[in-house]
Structure formats: structure tokens, C-alpha cells
């Protein structure tokens, strides 16, 4: 394994992949990229596929600067500006970085970077960083290295690009659970109090919350719980797997990515949907993702 690149500067960044599936039964959070579509896009741009354990840098905030020491093809997807040796470069496109060059990303929101030849150690089949239990992956720091085997033939991938696949607009869709709190929850605006990969905490003026708790039950990312002291919690990829708070519903899979975009103090609205409608929205998302890529060599 050789050093492909070294971290020169870094904001809030972890190594992620598509998640540590299969161990949730014994309490291991799934973790993985928070904005799945951007992660999958960065993988597909570079590798044409998304395989288990394919590493990407997840940059949630701030900047990432990497000094390259080998030739590599890279793809950055997200809300960020990208430069190589201070020259502006498009995101959503595979570009060639040469030894000695400095790649710099300035992120306004979640951004994913894949690097050809880069490989990471796996914990329980995944290189995802679980920020709650500290399991696997790594939180990137200055001086950290991306290692692997440099890929010789980059010409085939460089220039591959993606037409932007925007996130849905409007209220975040939630499949209601038992609908007992639905009428009150869905008519309110919710203000973001705190957020992390474990979850987003929200408050709404005048909302008192339900009394009491429920038997501990399994929960999953996107589950919306309400606490006795008046908070709503939307679980993220590193969120706990069991919950004792009453559940309002679960965010539609097609809208999970949008939870990674919310900002402190942002006002959110939620819309009630049902499982079949949410599944149809997911199918639409997948179709749009798969149709979004183009390799200029394929265009006659």
C-alpha cells in the first residue's frame, strides 16, 4: 500500500461507505454516508458501481485539503467548491490529480470525495465511521493519509460526469405510525435545536409532547420520536437502534438524504404520507440517479 494523499486541512470529515449492514440485531448502528445519493454518485462516477465497503470522505462542514503523492482520478459530489492547485474545477465530474497537487474542497453542505485506488480497513465488513459508538472508520485529522494501490489507467474514467439530481423540495415526507399524534405533529413548524449523525433534535412553539414512554422497541434511521419534555428527535445513520419514546412515524427513504442538509435554527415542516407512496418516491429517486451519468466517450 502506498500513500495516495495526505490531509493538510480538514473540517468535519469522516470515512464512510454504504453502511455496516447486517449487525443491527446486536446493537451495531448501520452508519454509512448520510446523504446516500451524493455518496453513491461519487462512487458510480469513479467506479461505475457501488460495492460494499467502497470508501469516500464525507465532508459535512468546513474545508478539506489533500496533498496528492500519486496520480489519481477523483470525484467530488455535493454542495462545495473544488480547486486543484487553486484552479477551479467542476464537481460531479471525474478529474485527474497529479502527484504534488493540492486538492481543496470548501463545503457548504454534505460533500463526498472518492479517490481511485484508495482502500480502507474494514470493521464488521464496513469502513463506515460510527460516531456514536466509535466503531470502525476514522474521523479525519491533519496528517492522516489515504493509502492504496494507485490505478494505472485513469483515461477511461476521467471526464465522466453527472447531471445534477436535486433533492426534493417542500415538507419532509413521513410515513405515520398509528397516526395517533399525526394531526398535531404535521401541522406545526419545527425548529432545529441540535444535529449530528446520531439525530436531529427539534422543538415547536407550544408543543408539550406526549406523557410517558413505550416499551423499548426497535427503531431505524429516519424514525421520528417525541420526548416527554417536548422535543422531537429524527434519528440519523448513527442513531440508537432501540427507543422508548413514542414514535410519530418514519421519514420516507427518498427524503432521508435531506436530513443531512438541515441547518441549526432552520424551520422544518413535515408532510404525512403512506408506505406505498413513499416506496414509489424511492423508485423514482433510483431511476433518476441511474439516468444521471454520462461518459463523454459514449456520446457519439
Amino acid at each position, binding site marked *: 500500500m502506498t500513500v495516495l494523499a495526505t490531509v493538510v486541512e480538514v473540517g468535519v470529515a469522516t470515512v464512510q461507505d454504504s*453502511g455496516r*449492514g*447486517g*449487525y*443491527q*440485531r*446486536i*446493537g*451495531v*448502528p448501520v452508519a454509512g454516508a448520510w446523504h446516500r445519493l451524493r455518496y453513491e454518485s461519487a462512487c458510480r462516477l469513479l467506479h461505475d458501481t457501488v460495492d460494499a465497503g467502497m470508501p469516500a470522505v464525507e465532508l459535512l462542514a468546513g474545508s478539506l485539503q489533500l496533498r496528492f503523492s500519486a496520480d489519481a482520478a477523483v470525484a467530488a459530489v455535493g454542495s462545495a467548491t473544488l480547486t486543484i492547485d487553486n484552479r477551479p474545477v467542476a464537481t460531479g465530474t471525474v478529474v485527474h490529480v497529479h502527484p504534488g497537487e493540492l486538492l481543496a474542497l470548501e463545503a457548504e453542505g454534505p460533500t463526498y470525495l472518492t479517490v481511485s485506488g484508495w482502500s480502507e480497513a474494514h*470493521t*464488521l*465488513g464496513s469502513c463506515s465511521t460510527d460516531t*456514536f*459508538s*466509535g*466503531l*470502525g472508520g476514522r474521523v479525519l485529522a491533519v496528517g492522516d493519509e489515504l493509502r492504496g494501490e494507485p490505478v494505472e489507467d485513469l483515461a477511461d474514467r476521467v471526464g465522466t460526469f453527472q447531471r445534477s439530481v436535486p433533492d426534493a423540495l417542500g415538507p419532509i415526507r413521513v*410515513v405515520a*405510525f*398509528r397516526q395517533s399524534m399525526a394531526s398535531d405533529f404535521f401541522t406545526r413548524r419545527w425548529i432545529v435545536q441540535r444535529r449530528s449523525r446520531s439525530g436531529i433534535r427539534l422543538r415547536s412553539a407550544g408543543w408539550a409532547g406526549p406523557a410517558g414512554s413505550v*416499551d*423499548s*422497541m*426497535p*427503531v*431505524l434511521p*429516519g*424514525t421520528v420520536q417525541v420526548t416527554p419534555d417536548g422535543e422531537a428527535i429524527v434519528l440519523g445513520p448513527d442513531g*440508537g*437502534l*432501540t427507543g422508548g419514546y413514542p414514535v410519530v*412515524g*418514519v*421519514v*420516507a*427513504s427518498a427524503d432521508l438524504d435531506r436530513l443531512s442538509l438541515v441547518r441549526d435554527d432552520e424551520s422544518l415542516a413535515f408532510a404525512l404520507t*403512506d*408506505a*406505498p407512496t*413513499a*416506496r414509489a418516491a*424511492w*423508485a423514482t429517486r433510483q431511476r433518476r440517479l441511474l439516468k444521471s451519468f454520462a461518459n463523454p466517450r459514449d456520446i457519439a
Partner: protein
Amino acid sequence: MSRIEVTPGVEPFGDRAVLVTCAGMTERIRVAAELRERLPGLLVRSGMRTVLVEQPEPDPALPERVTSALAAAKAATRVELGRTSSIVIPVAYEGQDLVEVSALLGLTVVDLVAAHVAQTWRVAMMGFAPGFGYLVPDGPQQAEWSAVPRRATPRAAVPAGSVAVSAGMSAVYPAAMPGGWHLIGRTDVRLFDPGNPGRPTLLDEGVVVRFVDGSSS
């Protein structure tokens, strides 16, 4: 005796999971075992009275598959529950809340330790953190465990290996993490080993646990 007596309720839980709610924990243990047997490849996780059947991505066929599996399980005469394994965990009973817990139970510290050791526990469900099992009394209650509530203010960091009780249950913290249970002891037994993908957890649903007085170190 081992049949599923009551048809559990099946509800959508988001677009990639369904939640099965059972009449009680005994029924839930059977339902979880049946669904794991009949739905290989799907993730089946247990709550106290609930079972969540989950897929990584939405699949319109999921609710029907779960309903069919439950119907087939109900029609079957026998439920093959997996072999039950049994684990002994040595404990140094010197937790920070030992005196408080004994007072809550109306016992001396010596009697509290004796009751915790005499109690047979069973893993009702896993969750909260990697390798964390919720242990419920199995067989006769050796103390009024439900008289111990959760702490009013959770600790920001509970040391790894802490043995705790709360809300009628006991548990061992596999790693240092925030926790709201009362701490009565500590063990050196390793509960979670991510370096062993074939069997990363010592505890699993249904495992019987006994504690013995005396640290393993």
C-alpha cells in the same frame, strides 16, 4: 404449548420495514424466532413486545412476505426455538450506586449482591449500543428489581464493563458510553469484539446469563 396463539398485529414502519406487535414477551420470542427462520436474508430485530422486519431499501413485497410467514408459522404445530446458550459473568460488586440500589430494594448490600447472583437472567433483546443486551429475570424474582428506576440524570460516561440495574432489568455496558442505569459492579469479560465478525457479541437474544461474585482479574 409452543404454537403462536394470537395473530400479531402487522403495521408499516416507514417504507422499508414492518413492525409486528405481540401480546407479550413470550409470544414475541416465538414470533422473532419464526420470522428469522422463515425470512432468511431479512433483518429481524426484537423489542420487548415487538419485532421489526427490515430491508436496506424499500420493497413493495415486504408486508405480504411478513404476513405470509406469520400465517405459515401459526399453521405449523411446532416452533423450533434455537438452542439456548448460557453464560457466566464474574462481577466485582463495587459499583458507585450499590448502596443506593440496596436502599431502593430494602436490602443490605450483602443481600443485594446475593440476590443479583442468585437471579437467573435472560437476554430479552439487544440494542442501545453494540453488544448491549437487556437482561430480564428468568424464573423466580430474587428481588423487587422493578423498584429501581432509571437515574434522574444519566451519566455522561459509564465505564466499560459496568454492571447495572434499572426498571426491572440488568445489563453490562460493553464500552464506555452515556448511561442512565444504576451501577452495582464491574466485569472484565469482553462483551463485544468487532475483530471477530463471525461472533462479535457475547450476548444475543435468548441467552441465559448468571452473575458470580468475584472479578475475573
